[in-house]
């Protein structure tokens, strides 16, 4: 058996031996995962090592391919056909990779979550602002996820009560093991079914020349008013880079136990997740484009997509799209609830780990289940303007996203925390360009909409 790595940096007891620090149940669980990583690395089992280390990157990217995002991509396809937004999805996922790689690296090097680091390094005001912003936008996004599950289930003639119950039960079930590894593998297993959107895209038999032309030329460019174009760009960005992703991947990387020696695999995980998510997102857009010339995007925020696709491309496509929406909503409910739990635990200084028991991390588990319960309950209230809430929440999330990203860049450049793992100059230039681009798009839409509401334009 390969010997474990030497015990380093431990305090020394009076008799000159290393004084062992307190070891919690959470530490013991994480150590067992690290044991497997250590042995896979020492024995040169490359594929097994990759299997052990992937997770947060794929989950965050496929989690962001959530119900509203897939409906948004499909709506773009049904409204504008195969054009600008197809390659633009790739651009937004490339931006997401830059942001999420920083989160993974900061989590692996510091072993602390984003909320905790912002609170400790930049003060309570920014720490609580970040957490408050996240909790609010997460809650509203969770409502939209339950709506997506409801839309998918409605295709099978199942009601809102089942959607709410299914979402909450999934959260409780996945949390019940008290192990990060178990939670991650269950959610990864579910996230694989995001690929249903790609199968649906292949079944609608798209015009491949148009797909290739769109990727090469970013055209045809969408028509419409300036405000509509800004809304579409802001919502596409909001469908790919969001505050919860920043919180989730950094906290999950720390909770999984990643270390600086795992950063390379963390990058594979992030890039692999983004590639899968971009392909599946393009799948949703291509499937939606089948409705061009057949009435375009269905009304009610895309609620009629599965039925419309069923009429135009066959029952199999409609069924796949409906199942895809249920999966997309369910996976996002799990990851977004987890990010809410991490944010609450980190900001109040309470235990916050999936390797802890529900009794040992009551606030973390309570916030996790509580967020899902509140969102599930809201979709059962008749007359609540769910679509308006979801749309404005996405815009607000996009507008506030630059704040989250600025702190991410500051943390990734913090020499005291990161040492040799700080951002390179070229990465900073790309990251700052992305923040400025997102800030300009979000602010332009917010200002233009505001001026229209007050009748100044």
């Amino acid at each position, binding site marked *: 058996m390969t010997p474990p790595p030497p015990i380093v940096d431990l305090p020394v007891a009076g008799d000159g031996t290393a004084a062992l620090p307190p*070891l919690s149940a959470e530490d013991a669980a994480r150590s067992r995962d690290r044991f497997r990583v250590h042995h896979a690395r020492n024995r040169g089992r490359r594929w097994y090592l990759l299997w052990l280390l992937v997770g947060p990157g794929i989950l965050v990217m496929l989690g962001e391919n959530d119900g509203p995002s897939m409906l948004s991509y499909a709506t773009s396809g049904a409204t504008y056909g195969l054009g600008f937004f197809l390659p633009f999805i790739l651009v937004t996922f490339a931006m997401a990779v830059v942001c999420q790689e920083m989160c993974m690296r900061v989590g692996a090097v510091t072993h602390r979550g984003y909320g905790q680091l912002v609170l400790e390094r930049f003060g309570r005001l920014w720490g609580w602002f970040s957490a408050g912003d996240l909790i609010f936008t997460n809650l509203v996004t969770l409502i939209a996820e339950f709506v997506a599950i409801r839309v998918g289930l409605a295709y099978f003639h199942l009601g809102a009560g089942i959607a709410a119950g299914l979402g909450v039960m999934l959260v409780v079930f996945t949390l019940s093991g008290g192990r990060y590894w178990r939670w991650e593998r269950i959610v990864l297993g579910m996230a694989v079914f995001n690929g249903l959107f790609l199968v649906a895209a292949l079944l609608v038999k798209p015009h491949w020349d148009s797909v290739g032309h769109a990727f090469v030329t970013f055209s045809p460019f969408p028509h419409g008013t300036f405000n509509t174009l800004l809304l579409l760009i802001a919502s596409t960005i909001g469908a790919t880079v969001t505050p919860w992703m920043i919180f989730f991947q950094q906290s999950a990387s720390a909770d999984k136990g990643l270390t600086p020696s795992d950063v390379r695999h963390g990058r594979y995980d992030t890039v692999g997740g983004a590639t899968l998510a971009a392909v599946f997102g393009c799948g949703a857009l291509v499937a939606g484009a089948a409705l061009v010339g057949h009435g375009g995007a269905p009304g009610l925020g895309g609620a009629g997509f599965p039925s419309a696709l069923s009429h135009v491309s066959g029952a199999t496509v409609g069924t796949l799209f409906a199942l895809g929406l249920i999966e997309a909503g369910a996976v996002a409910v799990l990851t977004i609830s987890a990010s809410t739990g991490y944010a609450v635990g980190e900001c109040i200084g309470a235990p916050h780990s999936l390797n802890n028991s529900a009794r040992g991390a009551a606030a973390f588990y309570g916030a996790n289940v509580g967020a899902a319960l509140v969102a599930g309950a809201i979709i059962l209230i008749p007359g609540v303007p769910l679509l308006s809430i979801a749309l404005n929440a996405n815009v607000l999330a996009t*507008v506030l996203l630059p704040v989250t990203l600025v702190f991410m860049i500051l943390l990734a450049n913090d020499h005291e925390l990161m040492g040799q793992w700080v951002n390179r100059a070229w990465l900073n230039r790309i990251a700052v360009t992305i923040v400025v681009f997102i800030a300009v798009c979000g602010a332009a839409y917010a200002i233009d909409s505001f001026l229209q509401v007050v009748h100044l334009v």
Partner: protein
Amino acid sequence: MTEREELIAYLEADQLVAERSRPLGRATLSRRTAAALWALRIFVIVVGVMVIYTFVASLGS
């Protein structure tokens, strides 16, 4: 090596819960960064108010 020692050996020293709970000090910000954070505060307040106003107005209509 005891089981406890072995468990600790597979973790980095600052990966233990006891160590992660130890608060870090405040970051030292350059004047340029501090100014940028003030600009960020103003951005958040101005644009956030616009979005919330737009949302409330859209509910009314």
